[in-house]
């Protein structure tokens, strides 16, 4: 009994320590100079990762991976289509969740992150739509199907990104823009599960999940590896751009403060 009590106390202590550490860390995330520096520090890592993985993945996808038994070499567009489709959704989730955090805890930096993610997400979504369309013409026999739930929901994702950006642009007051557009971003999250599960919920033209499912992937290892590498590469690329944009956004927001002044003077000196 005493043993259990002793251990319980230790666990509780550990948790509370973790908890205080977490909150300290969380509050640091509210401080612009800190976030600016943090973004600056992780940026090169993302850049390096992105370059290595994108090169390796491209080589793997174009050269090492065998042609598909059915689609031949045409299937290789998968190495762009799938990562960009994932990244579009990931970017939306990053945008919506940081906007929500910003709204609830009034954290300006979180809003900054959301703003930075939006155009990136839009571009990835465009890429997914375009590569999908290009792929669809030879494979399905059409670029586009209005009645297909996957395609429609992906298009709506693009509209959500655009709507978010347009809404922001129509406010002159940044604070208000942050908080109001956060609501739109959060409401739009409902689209994400729809995109993902659309192929299961409705019988559509778009194929079902190949890798993103509980079963074993329905793709052989030699084709899968480059795909995974590309996905990691795309993600790192996204992280890289996100850090860069976040830094820019912070400078824009904090341009009147002393630390930015100091930063600029330090650079020019």
């Amino acid at each position, binding site marked *: 009994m005493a043993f259990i009590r002793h251990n319980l106390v230790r666990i509780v202590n550990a948790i509370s320590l973790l908890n205080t550490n977490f909150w300290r860390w969380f509050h640091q995330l509210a401080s612009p100079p800190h976030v600016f520096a943090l973004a600056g520090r992780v940026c090169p890592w993302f850049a390096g990762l992105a370059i290595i993985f994108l090169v390796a993945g491209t080589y793997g996808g174009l050269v090492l991976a065998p*042609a*598909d038994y059915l689609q031949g070499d045409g299937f290789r567009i998968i190495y762009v289509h799938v990562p960009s489709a994932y990244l579009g959704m990931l970017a939306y989730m990053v945008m919506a969740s940081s906007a929500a955090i910003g709204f609830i805890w009034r954290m300006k930096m979180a809003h900054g992150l959301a703003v930075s993610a939006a155009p990136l997400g839009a571009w990835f979504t465009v890429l997914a739509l375009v590569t999908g369309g290009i792929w669809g013409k030879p494979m399905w026999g*059409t670029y586009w*199907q209005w009645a297909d739930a996957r395609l429609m929901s992906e298009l709506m994702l693009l509209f959500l990104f655009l709507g978010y950006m347009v809404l922001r642009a129509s406010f002159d007051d940044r604070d208000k823009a942050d908080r109001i557009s956060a609501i739109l971003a959060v409401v739009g999250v409902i689209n994400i599960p729809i995109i993902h599960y659309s192929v299961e919920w409705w*019988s559509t033209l778009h*194929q079902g999940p190949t890798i993103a499912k509980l079963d074993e992937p329905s793709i*052989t290892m030699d084709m899968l590896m480059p795909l995974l590498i590309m996905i990691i590469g795309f993600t790192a690329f996204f992280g890289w751009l996100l850090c860069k944009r976040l830094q820019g956004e912070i400078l824009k927001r904090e341009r009147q403060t002393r630390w930015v002044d100091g930063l600029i003077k330090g650079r020019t000196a």
Partner: protein
Amino acid sequence: MTARQNRMILIGLVVTGVTVSAFLALQAFEENLLFFFSPAQVAAGEAPTDRTFRLGGMVLEDSINREIGSLTLNFIVTDYTASIPVSYTGVLPDLFAENQGVVARGTLDNQGGFIAEEILAKHDENYMPPEVAEALALSEGSQTP
């Protein structure tokens, strides 16, 4: 009623609402929401007879035959419970082949055949090199004689 109770009631209502809606949505996915009809449904007379609809299934092995001297093509779409003969005139997508998924849009003629205006190929979720596909076909062939 105190403000606190009021608040709890409101939260309760919201939670109930979300639960009910999730339940209804799951219920809806039990019903099939059709992008296309399967041959079995067509055979059972569930498909409309007087207008265009989409027919989806697999192209039956050895069923494709071209009419000589024209672009017209006849083949059979099956879901392994029922089969529907389809005829189509026009260009085909690359993926159109025997044993592959296909979605055809068109109308039923009065002999129970299907006249397609448009053929779309539907790819499944499997990707593999040709060797693997052959091996797989072999093993499946041996399992289901």
